[in-house]
């Protein structure tokens, strides 16, 4: 096997130390690795350094807690490559991305469907409005188109259902409406404060998760190791974000089955959690809280007490609500066996986060590739296996409890430590030149992977972001197959995926 094995998360490696193979070796090695259940692809992308294309692949190994990195560099005018997706379906989205941006045909790929109509796509003549959706020529089926603008106050995307009566035969999801060109802006800005603020808007509902992925990546490039309390604070912030969203999602699930008491009680609890984040850093979404090198909002003894006290109350009240929700046979009958997915489907989709863990697939970066304080926590993820709306709802309740335990443990440790050691952020860190960095964070949706390559001058030349939604949108499309179309909103809420995180 020819790869560089990265054992830390985050970490950075000189480009020269990454084995570069021919495509046949690359292909065979990738297929061999991805056939093993402990491996999955974190990212696959192309760096274009003017006269040379280099395709990097990052494969996470859960057994060894490492990331395997290698590359291939075909001729610059390469037109086609043999598709890996044909053998390992989880690669489908990465090959589609590369196809869209560079025009390379992946022979044998099942469907080279456009990903997001990026502004620098290869085929500029292709237009979003001209996209031809998959259709079935039959008088017995009808199509339902929804979006890009949806009924509620949410982000845009288009859903095209092919239905037979009330049943969904096929759902095609077309995204890209949210494409802001954010990846390119990282390379243009070359200023750590600007990049840091930008990372918070990759998906604003995951500001802490993405800002953490960015900040720890910058630190890996600068070979800076954050002080112990900073690592703890960051983990607390990340878990607070998770708790807030999980409660909010429980509200949304209740709303979609017409259970108003559960909805409003959870909405009010989410408000309590995000207002706690606001009391800590001045912003309900934690914007400004996570910065490279240090923090502008070190936790004080008083703030630690506020968080502990608030969460005690939230915990008590959330238990009262979930006791009601998950003991109500009317609700359970609307959750069970709805939108069910199998472990095989999750593996094939490259599913991450709750979407994977609810099908029995143990994917959790906090457990497999511990970052910040997670190494000392001996954290074990909650796993359910029914793969339906019930599992995706219940896993939020279980994760709420796990996150609460993490926060309490870390705050207790911090309360007994010297809190005066905090350092301010450093926006002048020097990044190692000609280096590839990898940073993975388990955000509330799942695996966030940021990778970046620096040029000779130590400036960001390429910034590749992967939000967990990139994989999980396919899970949603599969979940509604064979379901009644009226169950779509419920299935959709049970995933709560990001549009802007996908569209970038």
């Amino acid at each position, binding site marked *: 096997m020819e790869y560089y094995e990265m054992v830390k998360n985050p970490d950075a490696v000189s480009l020269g130390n990454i084995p570069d193979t021919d495509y046949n070796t690359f292909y065979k090695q990738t297929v061999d690795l991805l056939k093993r259940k402990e491996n999955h692809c974190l990212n696959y992308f192309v760096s274009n350094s003017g006269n040379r294309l280099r395709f990097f692949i990052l494969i996470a190994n859960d057994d060894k807690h490492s990331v395997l990195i290698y590359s291939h560099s075909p001729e610059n005018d390469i037109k086609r490559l043999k598709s890996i997706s044909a053998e390992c379906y989880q690669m489908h989205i990465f090959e589609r991305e590369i196809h869209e941006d560079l025009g390379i045909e992946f022979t044998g790929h099942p469907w080279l469907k456009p990903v*997001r*109509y990026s*502004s620098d796509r290869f085929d500029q003549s292709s237009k*979003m*409005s001209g996209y031809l959706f998959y259709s079935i020529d039959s008088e017995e089926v009808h199509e339902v188109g929804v979006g*890009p*603008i949806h009924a*509620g*106050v*949410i*982000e*845009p995307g288009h859903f095209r259902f092919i239905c037979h009566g009330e049943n969904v035969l096929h759902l095609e999801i077309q995204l*890209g*409406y*949210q*494409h*802001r*060109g*954010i990846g390119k*802006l990282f390379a243009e800005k070359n200023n750590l*404060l*600007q990049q*840091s*603020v*930008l990372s918070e*808007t*990759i*998906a*604003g*509902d995951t*500001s802490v998760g993405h800002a953490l992925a960015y900040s720890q990546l910058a630190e890996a490039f600068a070979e800076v190791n954050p002080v112990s309390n900073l690592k703890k604070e960051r983990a607390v912030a990340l878990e607070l974000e998770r708790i807030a969203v999980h409660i909010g999602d429980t509200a949304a699930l209740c709303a979609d089955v017409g259970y108003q*008491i*559960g909805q*409003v*009680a959870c*909405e*009010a609890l989410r*408000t309590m959690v995000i*207002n706690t984040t*606001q*009391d800590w*850093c*001045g*912003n*309900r*979404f934690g*914007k*400004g809280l996570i910065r490279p090198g240090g923090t*502008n909002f070190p936790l004080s003894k008083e703030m630690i007490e506020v968080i502990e006290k608030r969460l005690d109350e939230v915990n*008590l*009240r959330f238990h*009262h*609500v979930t*006791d*009601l929700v998950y003991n109500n046979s009317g609700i359970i009958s609307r959750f069970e066996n709805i939108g069910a997915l199998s472990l095989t489907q999750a593996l094939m989709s490259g599913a991450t986060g709750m979407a994977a863990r609810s099908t029995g697939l143990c994917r959790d970066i906090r457990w497999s590739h511990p970052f910040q304080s997670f190494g000392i926590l001996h954290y074990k993820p909650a796993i359910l296996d029914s793969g339906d709306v019930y599992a995706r709802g219940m896993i939020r309740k279980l994760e709420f409890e796990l996150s609460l335990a993490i926060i309490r443990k870390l705050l207790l440790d911090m309360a007994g430590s010297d809190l005066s050691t905090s350092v*301010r952020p450093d926006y002048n860190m020097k990044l190692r030149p000609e280096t590839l960095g990898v940073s993975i964070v388990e955000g509330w949706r799942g695996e966030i992977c940021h990778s970046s390559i620096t040029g000779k001058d130590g400036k960001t030349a390429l910034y590749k972001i992967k939000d967990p939604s990139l994989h999980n949108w396919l899970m949603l499309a599969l979940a509604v197959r064979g379901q009644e179309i009226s169950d779509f909103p419920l299935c959709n809420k049970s995933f709560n995926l*990001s*549009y*802007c995180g996908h*569209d970038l």
Partner: protein
Amino acid sequence: MSGEYKVLKDHGKQFVPNLRTQPVSAIFRGRPVISDSLTNNEIRQVSELCPSGAIDSKTGSIDLGKCVFCNECALMLPGKIRFENDYRISVNRREDLVIRPGQEGHVRLDETLIRKDVRKLFRKALKLRQVSAGGDNSCEMELNAAGNVNFDMGRYGIEFVASPRHADGIVITGPVTENMAEALDICYKAVPSPKIIILVGTDAISGGLFTGSPAVNRWFINNHDIDLYVPGNPAHPLTFINGVMDLLGIK
């Protein structure tokens, strides 16, 4: 039934009784106050630091339409720049988002710019269609929160509706992506006249950090009159509700 009683008892009264004066965290970043004793050197330093180009390099004023409320300028010049927790920062004239050194006191809407029919027709019921056009979902979530059990803007007849045909105006979030430009225009045209346009969040007001990105298309914003600017990153629900109340003339 006892379980439901417990939840209702926990829940208690959640609604914010007075949306005009509801206190928020002391460190919430709303309206900035800038000292008029900034030296040229200090102005140069903070304007170079500002990640979104919101600080004027000559005058030292802060444009809330560009500001991402990161607080870095206040940390660089403590005592000279500070962010108050005043969330009533919505305006109806773009220039009024620029806060000058020495400027104290609340920002207010210019009453003379408010169209008569807006007040007459929408004072008791304002239905809005929200369009996210590259928004990062934080502004969208705050707009949803504006109608939740805490903020409950529905008490004034203000609410979001599904169809533009039922709406009296649109609320835009995000810098307006090229891929959403057409859908936004179609949606706006589907709203019956008279109609209003509200921009929510820094990205919508100025393009924010996405200014100049080839994936962004500002044509719609640059070619329509805007009735209300609601700054923030994201805009706080109280900033939005208070702005709309001011626009409608609700005391």
